[in-house]
């Protein structure tokens, strides 16, 4: 009997505890969170799978080096407060990371268990701890004595929030400047409610405020003040301004009504809550929606359009599914919800009616040729394969680049050809003295966690820089 149990346990241990989710049929009609979160029992069972490796590989895979075996051990001991404290030692935004980090390519990808079976569900456990803390009431750590140094953080997205939290904990006075009316950057305007509830973002921002960080909203650097002026007023500046400028395809018909950048579509839906009739902001509700692109933003836009009531939503992507930059989980979720994937397909023009409304997207079939610079096989059009897809709403989700506004009045700040800021990978130091940068403004559009990692490294470098002053 005992043996049988043992066998059962060992088999169970190979497979991770599934995440409770809203069924696809239900969730495609609402904006509530898809993943419901582990129960205490789920978390304990999943945590017990961790082997507590002496030399944990998972930590190396984490851009902010969370002590993963450490916090999982505390979960096993049912010390959830201890676990969240352990996480927060290095990660100021665990409720967010637990939800939107691509763990499968980071910590979980290096988990030893993953070699033969399924890796430990680290992200789900992180989220469990963060949500547990929110239920219990968040503890605010004591802040060391003030150093007398002032740091300006431009942008309140993941990079800025992380840098601000770390810098204030080091005793510096931190002011965050945000151009929108809400803090959070892409966490507020970009990632949808069903993936990252805005209440979570609000709580995490509140925590950073409680640490003593001052937020100046509706404050545009590049318009109200220049970067140069900030340099005069503050001892150091961190730029976490992201990649906010949407790219368009440059094809005919792109300015027809009903054609949106993913930024606009998602901002209307997420930040301005256009899905809620109580709110004044509108978004065109499409019957047939085409989303162009293969990243997480494309998945977010497609799934949002579905929830707004579209009859059919297609993702049009010029390469194959293998090449899609979106997280596997997002692609699976989108498929489950009934999004049509039109792969190896590229739009060539958008058609419209006499009232200037988009009616269809003309596409061409593609085939994969030789690998390009990024290592992905580059798609080439198949001659004569044009066809049209009806579409009254088209969302262009093919990427973004840094907003050039910030560079007005930023003497001596070097940029790359693509408009990104040149910054040291380890420190975030830029060519401009006292100015550090990190996140999408340096890398171009990437992930929340890589921006956080950059914010963290820059905070450390800024602290060292200030000590030398």
């Amino acid at each position: 009997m005992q043996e049988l149990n043992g066998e059962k346990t060992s088999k169970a241990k190979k497979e991770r505890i599934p995440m409770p989710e809203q069924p696809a049929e239900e969730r495609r009609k609402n904006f509530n969170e898809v993943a419901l979160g582990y129960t205490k029992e789920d978390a304990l069972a999943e945590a017990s799978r961790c082997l507590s490796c002496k030399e944990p590989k998972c930590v190396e895979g984490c851009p902010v080096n969370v002590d993963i075996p450490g916090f999982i051990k505390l979960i096993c001991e049912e010390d959830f407060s201890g676990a969240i404290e352990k996480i927060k030692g290095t990660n100021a935004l665990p409720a967010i990371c637990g939800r939107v980090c691509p763990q499968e390519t980071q910590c979980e990808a290096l988990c030893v268990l993953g070699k033969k079976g399924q890796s430990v569900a680290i992200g789900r456990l992180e989220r469990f701890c963060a949500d547990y803390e929110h239920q219990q009431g968040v503890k605010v750590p004591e802040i060391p004595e003030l150093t007398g140094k002032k740091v300006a953080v431009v942008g309140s997205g993941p990079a800025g929030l992380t840098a601000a939290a770390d810098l204030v904990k080091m005793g510096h006075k931190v002011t965050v400047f945000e151009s929108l009316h809400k803090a959070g950057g892409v966490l507020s305007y970009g990632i949808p409610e069903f993936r990252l509830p805005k209440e979570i973002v609000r709580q995490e921002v509140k925590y950073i405020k409680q640490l003593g960080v001052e937020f100046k909203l509706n404050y545009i650097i590049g318009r109200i003040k220049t970067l140069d002026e900030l340099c005069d007023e503050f001892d150091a500046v961190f730029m976490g301004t992201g990649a906010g400028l949407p790219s368009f395809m440059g094809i005919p018909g792109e300015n027809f009504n009903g054609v949106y950048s993913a930024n606009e579509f998602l901002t209307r839906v997420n930040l301005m809550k256009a899905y809620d009739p109580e709110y004044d902001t509108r978004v065109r509700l499409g019957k047939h929606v085409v989303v162009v692109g293969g990243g997480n933003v494309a998945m977010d836009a497609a799934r949002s359009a579905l929830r707004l009531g579209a009859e059919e939503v297609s993702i049009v992507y010029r390469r194959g599914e293998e090449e899609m930059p979106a997280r596997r989980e997002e692609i699976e979720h989108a498929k489950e919800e009934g999004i049509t994937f039109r792969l190896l397909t590229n739009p060539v023009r958008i058609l419209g009616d006499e009232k200037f409304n988009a009616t269809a997207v003309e596409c061409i079939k593609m085939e994969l040729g030789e690998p390009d610079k990024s290592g992905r096989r580059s798609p080439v059009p198949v001659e004569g394969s044009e066809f049209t897809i009806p579409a009254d709403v088209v969302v262009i989700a093919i990427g973004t680049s840094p907003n050039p506004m910030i560079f007005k009045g930023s003497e001596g700040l070097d940029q790359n050809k693509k408009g990104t800021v040149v910054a040291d990978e380890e420190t975030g130091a830029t060519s401009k003295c006292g100015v550090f940068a990190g996140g999408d403004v340096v890398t171009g559009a990437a992930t929340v966690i890589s921006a956080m990692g950059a914010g963290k490294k820059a905070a450390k470098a800024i602290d060292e820089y200030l000590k030398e002053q």
Partner: protein
Amino acid sequence: MAYKILKKEEIAPSVHRMVIDAPDVAKAAKAGQFIILRIDEKGERIPLTIADFDKEKGTVTIIFQEMGKTTKQLAKFSAGEFLEDFVGPLGTPADVRKLGTVILVGGGIGVAPLYPQAKAYSKVGNKVISIIGARNKDLLILEEEMKDASSELYIATDDGSKGHHGFVTNIMKQILDSGEKVARVVIIGPPIMMKVGAGVASPYDVEILVSLNSIMVDGTGMCGGCRVTVDGKTRFTCVDGPEFDARKVDFVQLMNRLAMYRGEEAKAAEKYEEECRCGLH
């Protein structure tokens, strides 16, 4: 954040002037720029041009006409009350330089953004000929202010109730025909008026600028909703504009894009008015 309304007055039927306490915006504001405001948490972000600013007092003046739900709601606010959000200055400032003689043409509510430009062009030593118009004399705004800020002021009304009986562009044409050397014409008003005005001025050897008021969300280049075709290229009104070379603007596209939410807007305004009648607001 909250921004206090210091003064509010109805300067023409359904046209209101508000002075807002917004020192950061006032300090940085320049002629030709705009702001975006949001009334409350559930409100939409609407762009409004800056009609005046006082850097010392830290105030920004806006002028708006009751059109949709938000402007109708805004009209109900009084001095002493607060707006949830007020962000700016947005847009590239008007290219104000000493050029010689400049004609400023404003129609309807478009006279509001013209006023800071009139002051700015005069200040740097231009001869400023302003032409302002409206459907009738009651709807004419900022007559005194424009008179003070300009070297010459002409008035036109569609119904002839004041000044020239006809369009502002008729007067503009007369001046251009008079042989006076004019370096630049700036036209601000409803898109159709700017289109017609640009057409009238085009044959003359004169620079023509218009200031566009596209639909936008953030006003910082992030959404691209305000895109407009200028010289065959897509530009963003919020950051590349709002001022553009009138000869190169695709006005038909602009007007079509402005109509994008017209149906929904009308419904929302109607619903709001109905609720007002029922005493809900």
